[in-house]
């Protein structure tokens, strides 16, 4: 079934290749301030993508712990990159002008067209996009197409593209790995029954027979649980199973569709406020080269709190009157 041209398996190898390039060039970079730690870090991460499925999971676990130790001991750092002056950049920008936008916009553009049209398409009897995750496969395919376009336009080689990718990987540093680590932690948490414990605390210490309190517990619990787990999808079954269905639907006859929709959105408010949702909050801070890693969360929390308050009243007034 995953036998497509742009299957996730193929895209993992592509990403592993980019990371392997980062690792090897780092290892060969004599001017690098943290040459070996960084090379080891990216080298192991490359292996996870290239041959992860062939290694025993315990080895990968050991490697992940080693990566965390390297990052924690500050052994992972960016290399020295040639930095053209601002005047150089402006002069280069003049040369290509608006054409520079084309490959940048080709990434989302091609991804959307591919995701819409290519579901049925096949190349020589093999599907084009991974059936399991066509959206992600489409972004992967679009990246390849856009890179070709960018190379043609700028008359650069794909190797220069890899060097630039290394510059950006260096800018993000270990923050690039954080989303995966946190998602792993979410799996460990739910395995160990953290959700059940939180739901028990929420339902046993609060007066759930008061309508407004029950609504507030559900909405704010979704947000709080998402802040802890980093993911609304992990919070939803716990809070809806613990509070939503038995109390809001069972006792107060809430409309299940509106309750679930508002509950899920309350979880998303939590996502806006937590460093645990690293790919939305911490990675962009690193990518935008912000000194404060929580700057994006600081920009978002007033919005998130306002939406949560609106959700509490919305759900409360949608309950049928007794």
């Amino acid at each position, binding site marked *: 079934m995953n036998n497509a041209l742009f299957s996730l398996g193929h895209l993992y190898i592509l990403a592993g290749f980019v990371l392997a390039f980062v690792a090897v060039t780092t290892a060969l970079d004599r001017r690098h301030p943290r040459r070996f730690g960084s090379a080891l870090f990216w080298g192991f991460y490359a292996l996870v993508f290239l041959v*992860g499925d062939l290694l025993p999971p315990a080895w990968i676990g050991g490697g992940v712990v080693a990566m965390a130790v390297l990052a924690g001991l500050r052994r992972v750092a960016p290399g020295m990159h040639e930095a053209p002056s601002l005047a150089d950049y402006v002069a280069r920008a003049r040369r290509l002008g608006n054409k520079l936008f084309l490959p*940048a916009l080709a990434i989302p553009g091609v991804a959307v067209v591919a995701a819409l049209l290519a579901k049925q398409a096949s190349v020589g009897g093999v599907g084009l996009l991974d059936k399991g995750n066509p959206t992600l496969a489409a972004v992967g395919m679009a990246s390849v197409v*856009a890179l070709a376009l960018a190379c043609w336009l700028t008359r650069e080689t794909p190797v220069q593209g890899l060097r630039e990718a290394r*510059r950006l990987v260096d800018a993000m540093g270990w923050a690039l790995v*954080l989303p995966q680590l946190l*998602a792993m932690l979410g799996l460990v948490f739910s395995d160990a029954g953290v959700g059940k414990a939180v739901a028990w605390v929420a339902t046993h210490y609060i007066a759930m027979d008061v309508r407004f309190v029950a609504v507030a517990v559900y909405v704010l619990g979704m947000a709080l649980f998402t802040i802890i787990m980093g993911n609304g999808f992990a919070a939803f079954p716990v809070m809806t199973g613990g509070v939503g269905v038995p109390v809001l639907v069972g006792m107060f006859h809430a409309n299940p569709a509106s309750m679930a929709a508002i509950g899920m959105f309350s979880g998303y408010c939590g996502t806006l406020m937590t460093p645990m949702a690293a790919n939305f909050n*911490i990675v*962009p801070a690193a*990518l935008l080269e912000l000194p404060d890693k929580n700057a994006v969360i600081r*920009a978002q929390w007033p919005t998130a709190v306002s939406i949560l308050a609106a959700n509490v009243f919305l759900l409360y007034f949608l309950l049928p009157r007794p």
Partner: protein
Amino acid sequence: MAPDVSLWPLLGVAVIIAGFVLRFNPMIVVIAAAITTAVIAKYDTVHTLTVIGTGFLKTRNLTLALILPLATIGLLERHGLRQHAQAWIRRFRNASVGQLLIVYLGARELLAAVGLTALGGHVQMVRPLIAPMTEGAAEARHGPLPDRIRHRLRAMAASADNVGLFFGEDIFVAFGAIVLITTFLHEAGIDVEPLHVALWGIPTAVVAFVVHAWRLHRIDAALARELGRATPPADDAPAASNGAAA
């Protein structure tokens, strides 16, 4: 009353919170929380490493969309994409930071609501295009920006992407969240139409847009207050002659 479930797993949550509050390296904090949770669950060393390794392997898809566009974006940046995006926005002489980000927020939310979530993202859109345009629009009105303001503008650009994506995608019927909701409720003995769940998301999606758009709109006034009044948008005239008159 005695709990009928074990509360010990909450210790892992405590480790996370303590680690973030004490500002340890997040990678160390996460690994420490995973190991704490595994010790409480009485996993042995090999089992612990297996759980960590399996989880890490299973979630590779999260990083894929971050890594693959980097070569293209980096190459274009080398040829001045960010500088060009800054210069390009100055052509729209009246474009303010607030207006620009509100348009992006609205477009991102509407496109996500019809399932086009790939149109946007921090690697593909915010770093190379939206953040530089935001800075360019601010510079065109207020002159050179101090780093503190520049960083705040970038963070607001990232927030527009997140808010638009989150509150748009959940009113798209075929999105995973809606599938999760209907499947979960079905198992709890309640059948709901996916379309109803999507429609009931619309009030919150509208609130999210209004609240965040209002906050983005207020950036313009904050910039004017902190950086002095807006200079007349004239990019050719020497800046010094305008500064005093304003």
